[in-house]
């Protein structure tokens, strides 16, 4: 198989706070291949946004990346070690160059007093050799491509003059205008109406195949993942507890947390069925549980083991892996 586009290995992120070092992400490892859509699922506070921002080195000044952490971006002109980038000019490759990001709130991610067009041109002038006029033409073309009517007129308007769906489209147009290899979408549809959500997701799927780029799709919504992603990683309290293809994970979840998430979803075919929420709350990152991060809420936790040993990834068939002692035991039993 060819090289992955981006390879994240043992990513551990801590924040220095007044209460001491707080671990937000621990030993996160995943690859995304060119043209692949990977979903990153988890509750708020699970570290998915922090992980995404690490790919662009956008986390705040009090962030400490563990020295073991590796993020390698394989570009046509050679691999880029994201943590070795120092100066602003070097960082541009992961900031709008080969990697672009769209955010949850399109309204808040446009500067309110600068026109949408000016912000688009600015980005193109930073990353390409285009002239201002060419950048303008390309930007209008991109706005047109994402389905913004009367793009040339809209180009000179401000974000507050756009509707919610239009803003997110413009955000996508802006993110894609530099033809990035990887698009990070941080809950891009959460703030939108359901009908607009579907439109935006369809648009993103179209653009992925057209531009041949990979997407890291961050969401807490497993339904959205089922529609869009090829593979999925489930995060809980800074760790990836289960990853595999969307079909594997959604049809046959192995980790107790993934199972809990799926049974908490309403089912259209059986509206009478009771929803089973995952019991308890996600613990504060300030006191991470010892052993398995999920043991405080796990219905099948083994006392004396799950609260002591951190489970290793157990590799299952089809490239899937699950970090759970119970799953590891049943696999071992199956082998003997």
């Amino acid at each position: 198989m060819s090289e992955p586009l981006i390879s994240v290995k043992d990513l551990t992120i801590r924040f220095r706070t007044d209460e001491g070092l707080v671990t937000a992400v621990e030993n996160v490892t995943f690859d995304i291949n060119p043209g692949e859509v990977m979903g990153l699922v988890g509750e708020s506070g699970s570290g998915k946004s922090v992980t995404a921002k690490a790919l662009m080195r956008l986390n705040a000044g009090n962030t400490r990346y563990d020295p073991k952490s590796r993020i390698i971006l394989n570009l046509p002109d050679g691999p880029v070690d994201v943590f070795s980038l120092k100066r602003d000019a070097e960082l541009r490759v992961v900031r709008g160059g080969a990697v672009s990001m769209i955010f949850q709130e399109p309204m808040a991610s446009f500067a309110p007093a600068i026109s949408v067009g000016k912000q688009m041109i600015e980005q193109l002038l930073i990353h390409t050799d285009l002239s201002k006029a060419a950048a303008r033409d390309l930007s209008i073309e991109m706005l047109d491509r994402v389905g913004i009517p009367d793009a040339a007129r809209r180009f000179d308007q401000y974000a507050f003059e756009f509707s919610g769906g239009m803003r997110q489209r413009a955000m996508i147009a802006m993110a894609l205008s530099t033809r990035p290899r990887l698009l990070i979408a941080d809950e891009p549809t959460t703030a939108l109406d359901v009908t607009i959500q579907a439109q935006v997701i369809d648009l993103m799927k179209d653009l992925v195949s057209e531009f041949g780029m990979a997407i890291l799709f961050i969401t807490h919504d497993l339904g959205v993942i089922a529609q869009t992603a090829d593979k999925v990683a489930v995060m809980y309290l800074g760790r990836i507890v289960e990853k595999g293809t969307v079909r594997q994970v959604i049809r046959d979840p192995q980790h107790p947390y993934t199972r809990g998430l799926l049974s908490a979803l309403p089912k259209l075919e059986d509206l009478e069925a009771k929803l089973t929420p995952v019991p308890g709350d996600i613990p504060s990152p300030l006191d991470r549980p010892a052993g398995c991060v999920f043991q405080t809420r796990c219905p099948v936790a083994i006392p004396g083991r799950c609260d002591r040993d951190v489970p290793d990834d157990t590799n299952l068939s089809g490239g899937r892996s699950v970090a759970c002692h119970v799953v590891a035991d049943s696999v071992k039993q199956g082998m003997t």
Partner: protein
Amino acid sequence: MSQFIQFAMTRAFLALITLLTVSLIVFTLMELVPGTCAERYLAFKNTQGSQITIADIKAEERRLGLDRPFVERWVKWVGNVFIHGEFGDSCILRLNINQLLADKFWISLGICMAALILSYAIAVPIGIISASSNNAFVNNSLRFVSYLGLALPNFLLALIIMLFSTVFFGDSLTGLFSKEYRDAAWSMAKFGDFLSHAWLPVFILGWSATAFALQTVRALMLDEIGKLYVTAASARGVSGARLLWRYPAKHSLGPVINSLGFDLNRIFNELPIVALILTLTEAGALLFESLARSNDQQLAGAIIFLLTASIVALNFFTDILLALIDPRVRRGMMG
């Protein structure tokens, strides 16, 4: 563009309406002072020993036009002010108010404006840079200096500076002009002499205004820097000075510009105390004098009107400036 001119015209028209309203209020207040100009003048004459009768008062009232209805007198006053820039005679001093005020008002306004400009010229760049810097030493020393500026009363600062200057240089730094220029006509030399004196009140008034503005700018900047659009811009590769000035700095200036008119008023209110200590002859002191001591309604009204007019003018100017930098304001006002 034509839309913008239309907007500016609308604003100017509104400013004019505001001024007319202000003039009505000021004129009414002048009228509310017990006793008319005629009564007060003749009462003053009485103390000088001359006998006066009711008939004298009536005659004087007629001479001053005080027997005419209120609205007619207001229209006449406003007309003179707006068309000729003429405020009439002072009630007590019997002197033309324009001559009496002469340069004093413009000097006062100039000192206040200079203090205002000085404070913003310092506070805006320093506030922006300090909000974006993580240097604890720089930030703490800035905070110290500006809290000192906020906490130290102006009169105390003025007294301290005078004391130092008298002890070490033998010059109390008082007044606005050297003796030889005091009654001279305006010339380059007189202007230079004025500047060599005026820096002190400007500095004293400017310090606390700077401290205040600095805290405002810093707080607004910290607020803007944390916003998502700044992260989004840096995710697009915008960095360094461009990121700082084009994104959070530009967006934090709106409320700062909005507060200019308010600040001018505050500085003007502080001027008389400083002026008293530095023995400056300026309009604020004259206002107190005419209000508190001699009850000179015509003179007080003229000064209050001029001050309000300056603030209305400044607000008009900041409205235009705000519309220039913020499209939301532009759209909101133009519809």
